[in-house]
C-alpha cells in the first residue's frame, strides 16, 4: 500500500466502494479517456485528406480542432518531459557530458523555435510516407522545441542543488542510483519542473498557430487544429472566425489550467524543500475532489503498489545495481598514475570537444558559403541589430508601464490575488491571434510597419514582467515598508531606495523571459498578413520568415545563426550579470 510517495495521491480510506466524490470524479476521467482515444484515431488518416485547405471555418468544428491541438501539445509536453529526464540527468551526472550538453542546451534555447520547423518537416514527412503521422510528428516536434529547453535547464539546476544533508542521508542509507533518482532527485526537482511545464505550455500556444499550417518551400501542410483554423481565417479575412478561435482557445486554456496544472501545482507543493509552513498554499478543487474519493484513491494506490512491486521485481532481475559509487574526494588522488590518467582523459576529452565543435562550425560555414557572400553576412548582422533595437526599446517601454502597475497591484493583496491569475492567463494566450487587428489598424491609418509591427513582438511576453513584479511586490517584507512609512520616505526616493531594489531580482527574471520571447516572436511578428495584405518590417525575424517560406536553406541557417549569436550575446553581457548583481545585492546576511 505504500506506493511511490508521489504516485499515491491519497491514503487508505477503506474499501473500494465509491463515495459521492467518486460520482463526480469518475465521469471526468472516463470523458478524458474517450476524448484521448478519439483524437488519436484521427491521426492515422491518409495524408491526402489534409493537403490543401482541409480546414473548415465552420465554428462547429472548433471543439474537435481544439481537442486535436491540445493532444498535440500534451504529446509534445510528454516528449519534453522524457527529454528533460534523460538530457538533464546526463548533464548533471557526468562531468564529460556536462561539458557538451550544457552549452548545447544554451544554444538550442536561443535558436528561434520556428527555425527548427523548416529543417525537420521534410525529415518527419519521409518517416511516414503517405500518412498524416509524419506531419503530426513534425508539428509535435515543433511544439516540443518551444517547450523542452527551459524544462531541461530547470531540472539540471535542481539536480545540481540537492541539499547536502539529504544527499548524505541517501548515501548513508545506501540508496542505489535508481532509488536515489526517484526517491530524492525527481521529487526535489518537482516544483520547479512543474512550474516550467506551465510556462512551456503557455509558450507552446504561440507556435501552434505557426506549426499546424506549415509552408516550407513548395510543401504546405495543414493539420486540422485551432492553429490551422486561425491561419485559414487570416488567409480568408474572416474576422468572426478569428473571434471564434479566440473563444475556443480561452476555453481550452481554462480547462487545462483547472484540470491539469492547478492540481499538479497543488500536489507538487509537498515537494517544496523549505520546511516552514507556507503562507499561501496552492489549492485545487479538482485535486480536492480526487483526494476525497474513495474508489479512485484506492485504485490509484493499488496502481502505485503494483508499480512498486514491478520496480522491486526489476531491481531484483537486474543483477543488483550496486549502491552507487559515493563521491570519495580523496580516493582518486592517492596514486600518481591515477591522477595522471585522469588528467590525460581530461585533455583528450577537451581536444575531442574542440575538434568536434570546430568540425560542426566548418560544416555550417561551408554549407552557408555555397549561397551566401560575406557582404550578405554583414547585412544580416545589420538586420539583427534592427531587431535588437526593437527588443531593447520594447522591454524598456514594457518596464515603464508594468513595473509601477505591478508594484501597485502587488502591494494590495486582495487585488494581486485577482490580477495574478489573469496575468498568467494572458501570458498563456497566443498573442498572434491579435495580429490581424494590428494589420487592419496599420493599413487603415497608413502607419509605418517598421515601428507599428514591433509591439506585436512583446504583446505575448510582457505579462512575464507584470506577474513577476507582482510576485516581487507581494513578497516585499512588510517591516521594510513600515520602516519607509515611519521615516516618511516618499516619491522618487521611495522607488529608488525601497521598492526597486526589493523587486529587482523578480523583475530581472521576468525581463529575461520577456526578452527571450520577444526574439522568438520576431519571426512571426515582423511579417504579418491579412488575406492578401502583407506587412513587412525590416529585421532578422522577417529575413528568417521570408527565407523559410521560399525554402532557401543556406539563408535560413545564416539567419538563425546570427539571431542565436545575438541572443547569446545579449544574455551573457546584460541579463546574466544583472541577475547575479540583483541576487548578490538583495541578500541580507
Amino acid at each position, binding site marked *: *500500500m*505504500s506506493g511511490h*510517495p*508521489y504516485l499515491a495521491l491519497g*491514503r487508505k480510506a477503506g474499501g473500494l466502494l465509491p463515495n459521492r466524490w467518486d460520482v463526480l470524479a469518475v465521469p471526468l476521467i472516463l470523458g478524458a479517456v474517450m476524448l484521448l482515444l478519439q483524437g488519436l484515431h484521427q491521426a492515422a488518416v491518409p495524408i491526402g485528406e489534409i493537403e490543401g485547405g482541409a480546414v473548415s471555418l465552420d465554428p462547429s468544428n472548433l471543439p474537435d480542432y481544439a481537442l486535436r491541438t491540445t493532444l498535440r501539445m500534451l504529446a509534445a509536453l510528454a516528449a519534453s518531459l522524457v527529454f528533460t529526464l534523460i538530457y538533464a540527468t546526463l548533464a548533471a551526472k557526468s562531468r564529460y557530458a556536462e561539458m557538451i550538453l550544457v552549452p548545447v542546451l544554451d544554444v538550442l534555447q536561443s535558436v528561434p523555435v520556428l527555425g527548427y520547423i523548416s529543417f525537420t518537416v521534410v525529415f518527419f514527412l519521409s518517416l511516414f510516407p503517405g500518412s498524416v503521422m509524419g506531419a503530426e510528428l513534425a508539428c509535435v516536434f515543433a511544439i516540443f522545441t518551444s517547450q523542452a529547453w527551459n524544462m531541461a535547464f530547470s531540472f539540471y539546476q535542481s539536480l545540481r542543488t540537492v*541539499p547536502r*544533508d*539529504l544527499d*548524505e*542521508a541517501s*548515501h*548513508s*542509507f*545506501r*540508496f*542505489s542510483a535508481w*532509488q536515489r533518482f526517484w*526517491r*530524492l532527485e525527481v*521529487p526535489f526537482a*518537482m516544483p520547479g519542473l512543474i512550474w516550467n511545464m506551465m510556462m512551456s505550455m503557455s509558450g507552446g500556444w504561440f507556435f501552434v498557430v505557426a506549426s499546424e499550417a506549415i509552408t516550407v518551400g513548395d510543401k504546405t501542410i495543414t493539420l486540422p487544429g485551432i492553429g490551422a483554423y486561425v491561419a485559414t481565417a487570416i488567409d480568408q479575412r474572416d474576422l468572426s472566425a478569428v473571434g471564434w478561435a479566440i473563444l475556443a482557445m480561452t476555453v481550452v486554456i481554462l480547462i487545462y489550467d483547472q484540470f491539469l496544472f492547478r492540481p499538479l501545482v497543488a500536489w507538487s507543493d*509537498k*515537494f*517544496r*524543500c523549505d*520546511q*516552514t*509552513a507556507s503562507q499561501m498554499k496552492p489549492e485545487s478543487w479538482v485535486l480536492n475532489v480526487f483526494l476525497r474519493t474513495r474508489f479512485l484513491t484506492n485504485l490509484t494506490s493499488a496502481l502505485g*503498489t503494483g508499480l*512498486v512491486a514491478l520496480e*522491486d521485481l526489476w*531491481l*531484483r532481475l537486474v543483477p543488483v545495481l550496486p*549502491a552507487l*559509487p*559515493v563521491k*570519495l*574526494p*580523496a*580516493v582518486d*588522488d*592517492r596514486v600518481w598514475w591515477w591522477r595522471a590518467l585522469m588528467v590525460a582523459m581530461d585533455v583528450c576529452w577537451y581536444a575531442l570537444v574542440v575538434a568536434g565543435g570546430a568540425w560542426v562550425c566548418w560544416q555550417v560555414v561551408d554549407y552557408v558559403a555555397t549561397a551566401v557572400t560575406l557582404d550578405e553576412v554583414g547585412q544580416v548582422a545589420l538586420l539583427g541589430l534592427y531587431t535588437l533595437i526593437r527588443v531593447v526599446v520594447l522591454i524598456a517601454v514594457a518596464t515603464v508601464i508594468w513595473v509601477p502597475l505591478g508594484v501597485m497591484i502587488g502591494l494590495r493583496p486582495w487585488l494581486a490575488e485577482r490580477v495574478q491569475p489573469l496575468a498568467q492567463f494572458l501570458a498563456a494566450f497566443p498573442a498572434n491571434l491579435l495580429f490581424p487587428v494590428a494589420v487592419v489598424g496599420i493599413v487603415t491609418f497608413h502607419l509605418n510597419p517598421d515601428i507599428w509591427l514591433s509591439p506585436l513582438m512583446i504583446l505575448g511576453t510582457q505579462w512575464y514582467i507584470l506577474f513577476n513584479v507582482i510576485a516581487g511586490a507581494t513578497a516585499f517584507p512588510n517591516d521594510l515598508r513600515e520602516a519607509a512609512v515611519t521615516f516618511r520616505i516618499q516619491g522618487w526616493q521611495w522607488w529608488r531606495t525601497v521598492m526597486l531594489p526589493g523587486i529587482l531580482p523578480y523583475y530581472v527574471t521576468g525581463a529575461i523571459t520577456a526578452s527571450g520571447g520577444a526574439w522568438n516572436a520576431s519571426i512571426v511578428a515582423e511579417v504579418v498578413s491579412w488575406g492578401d495584405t502583407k506587412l513587412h518590417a525590416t529585421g532578422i525575424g522577417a529575413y528568417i520568415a521570408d527565407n523559410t517560406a521560399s525554402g532557401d536553406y543556406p539563408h535560413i541557417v545564416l539567419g538563425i545563426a546570427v539571431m542565436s549569436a545575438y541572443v547569446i550575446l545579449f544574455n551573457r553581457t546584460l541579463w546574466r550579470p544583472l541577475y547575479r548583481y540583483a541576487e*548578490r*545585492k538583495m541578500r541580507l546576511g
Partner: protein
Amino acid sequence: MTNGLANQPLFELVGVRQAFPKPAGGELVVLDDVNITLRAGEIVGLLGRSGSGKSTTLRVVAGLIRPSSGTVTYQGVPVRGPSPGIAMVFQSFALFPWLTVLENVEAGLEALGVPSREKRQRAEAAIELIGLDGFESAYPRELSGGMRQRVGFARALVVNPNLLLMDEPFSALDVLTAENLRTDLIELWSEGKLPIKSILLVTHGIEEAVLMCDRVLVFSTNPGRVRAEIPVPFKHPRNRLDPAFRKLVDDIYALMTQRTQTTAPASGQVGVLSGIADKLPQVSANLLAGLLETLTAAPYQGHADLPVLAEDLQMEVDELFPIAEALHILRFADLAEGDIRLLPAAFTFAEADTDGRKELFGQHLLKYVPLVAHIRRVLEGRPRHRAPRLRFEPELEDQLSESYAEETLRAAISWGRYAVLYTYDDQAEIFSLEEEEVEGAEPGSQQDAAA
C-alpha cells in the same frame, strides 16, 4: 555503561589522515593521525570546537568520505563506502520533505530490499519506540523540531544498525526539547531497548558529552587530532549538579583552553599572533565589548572561570570560546586553564566613551593583529589608498583553508571598520582609506561635529 562484550572492536580507525591539496601548493591537513576504537556497548563522544575535524571523522566512519591515508575497518573488514550496519542521525534532520513520517522511516529500509509488509511492521515498531505514534501520516513540515529529530532517530533505528552515528543531533533544537530528547534516548539505551550496539556522538557541548557518553575524545583544532581520551565513570541517569560531574566538566574546559595557553606571548614577540595568516575568530566588536563590560563588573571583577561564565551567560562553549579567544588575541585578556583574566587595557576600554573605545581598539588591532596592520600598511603605501580584496585573499589561502581564510578576512574587515582603520566595499570587494584617516586624525571626529 562499561564495555562488556569487548573482544573484537566494532569499528576501528588507525592513523587516519585527511588532507586536501591547496591551489598554492602544499596541503591542508584536516585530520592527522586519528586513532579511534569503538567497542560494543558504549557511547563515545567526539568533542571539539568547530573546525576540529570531528564531523569529518564521523563522515569517515559513515563511509561518506574516504581518508587520504590510514585504515578504517568495521568488524574487521575494510570500509569502502556506507556500511549496512551503520546508520546516521543528522544535525539538520535530513528528512525527505515529500514523505510522511511513516514513509521517511520506511526509506531507511528502502535500499535493503525488505518486503513491503515487513517494512511497514518494522517502521511502525520504530515509530512507536521513539514515541511518534499518532504522527505516522504527518509531513515533516507539520512537526516541531523535536518531533522531526525523533523521525530522524526512528529512520536510523529501523535498520537495526550496530553503530548509530549522531552528528550534533540536538544542536538545532531549543534547550528544553533537546534535554527531553536526550533523556528519552539515554533511558531507552540504559534499558537496552535500542536495537544498536554502540553510539558515536559528535558534539560541541561539554555538558552534553559528559551527560551522555561513556568515553569522550577531545579533538584539537588545526589540524584535527585526538588530544585526549577521557572516560566518564558515572552511571545513568546522571546528575548535572553532582560535584564529580561538575569537576569533570571543568577539567574538560581547562583541557580545551590549553592551546591558547601554550601560545601566550613568547619573549621577543609583540602579541599572540605571529603572522598575517593566523586564523582570527569571527566575532563582532560589539560582542567583545559586551563581554569586556560583563567581566569588569561584579561579580567577576576582571576574572572568571569559563564554565561558570558560560552557564551564567547561557552560552555553549562554542559560542563563548571564540569571544574569549579574540580578547586574548587583542591583549585585552589572558586565557589559561579554563580561566579568563582581564588585562589593564580592558578596564580602560570599559570606561572610555565610544570614540575612545574605537581608538583603543584600533591601537590594539594595529599592534597585535598582523593582518590588520598589513592591510593598513598596504593601503597607506598606495597612491590612491585603495586595494582589492584579491590583494590579501591569496596570502591567507596560502596557509589557511578557503573557509578559514574567508572567516579571517571577514573578522579583519569587521574589526577594521569598527576601529575606522579602513573601509570596505562589499560589491566592488575593495579596501580603502577615507580622507581623514590618511591624515591620521582621530577617528570619529566627524561624528563629534555632527553630534
